[in-house]
């Protein structure tokens, strides 16, 4: 399982590094979305709002949707899908590998957007630094959930539009927990309950993915 996971993760990351979709499409989209949130807040609030953490996660959710879709598209041409299916890869390994690759991509985008939040929405740099561990774990949980939901919609009718419908309700607790943990880091408040939500979600999605990804692939 670990061998296949590593193989799949390396393959996905290599494709991403070569195609530069993350660099030229996803990161600019995220940066623009972050700017738009500032415009939506209005001139009075754009630079001094406490909404920075929430807006950061909102933008990250949209970015995650793009990247989950992209992660599934790699195998979506009929020929590639058939060829890969005939390799008979261990589904748990495929799930872990795709989750790992997506997680790394989300981390890279997350770090850029976190810097953007500090720069554009004037979120305190020290607080953003303190929030970093919770951001990384929350994005990890998003990656695990996204890989699972991505496989559920892959190849179905209107997969790109169905994906947000399935993902966003499941992402809601991660958005809440991530935002609260980030805000708590800014105000030096308690945040243990938000870690509970994020860690439980991460463990649940990874566990379910390992157990049930094969059922989705088998289909």
């Amino acid at each position, binding site marked *: 399982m670990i*061998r*296949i996971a590593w*193989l799949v993760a390396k*393959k996905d990351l*290599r*494709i991403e590094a*070569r*195609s530069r979709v993350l660099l030229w499409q996803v990161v600019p989209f995220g940066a623009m979305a972050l700017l738009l949130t500032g415009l939506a807040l209005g001139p009075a609030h754009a630079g001094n709002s406490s909404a920075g953490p929430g807006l950061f996660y909102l933008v990250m959710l949209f970015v995650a949707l793009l990247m989950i879709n992209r992660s599934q598209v*790699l195998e979506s*041409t*009929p*020929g*590639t899908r*058939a*060829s890969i*299916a*005939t*390799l*008979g*890869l261990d589904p748990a390994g495929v799930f872990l590998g795709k989750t790992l690759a997506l997680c790394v991509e989300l981390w890279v985008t997350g770090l850029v957007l976190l810097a953007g939040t500090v720069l554009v929405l004037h979120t305190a740099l020290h607080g953003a630094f303190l929030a970093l561990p919770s951001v990384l774990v929350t994005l990890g949980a998003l990656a695990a959930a996204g890989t699972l939901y991505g496989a559920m919609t892959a190849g179905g009718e209107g997969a790109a539009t169905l994906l947000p419908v399935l993902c966003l309700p499941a992402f809601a607790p991660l958005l809440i927990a991530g935002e609260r943990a980030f805000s708590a880091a800014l105000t030096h408040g308690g945040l243990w309950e938000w870690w509970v939500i994020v860690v439980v979600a991460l463990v649940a999605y990874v566990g379910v993915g390992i157990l049930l990804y*094969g059922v989705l692939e*088998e289909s």
Partner: protein
Amino acid sequence: MTPSPVVHLRGAVALSSGFPLLSGVDLDLEAASLNVITGANGAGKTSLLRLLAGLLALSSGEAEVCGVDLTNGDLRQLRRRVGWLGHEGSFYADLTVRENLRFCALALGRPTDEIDAVLARVGLSSRVDTITKKLSAGQRRRLGLAWLLLRRAELWLLDEPYASLDDQGRTFFDALLADVINAGATVVLSAHDPLRATTLRPRTIGLVGGRVREVAP
């Protein structure tokens, strides 16, 4: 005792969106044989190959491929034993030729030191580090053959393999098929017309309306 056939289908029906791609196929294929499926567009050639690869669900009837029951058997095990070459291009377009083959070899637990020999065999040695999407259609087809050689599949399923091949490519491909059949593999390929090659003695299976209409010889 007669050896059991590699493919055994009885009344095999396969659907897609309610449409019967296959409408009751009866077919037996022996090991180490070359079989050509012919038929008009929409006759069900690709669907039959996909069914044999365990990539299309059997809706009704009986089907056994390489000893695996398509209704209740372990389809993942079956898929590992077949080699599929579609006409759409079957690789990661952003990986190089070597990276694609390396992924295939590592995924199947095969040694990666066979890659160079396989690439030399299909005439792609000079394209080892070329990104796959930059290959011509014919070169991609050769990469597909390298992928299959590396896999050492028991059952080769080739969807219109002669498309995009020039005369030299066709001759090379006929020789390759003869070798893999001699080595004990079974080959099933689809083509619009019966095979023109003179060196091979294929069995031709004519499909009409998702069913086998004629088998020759």
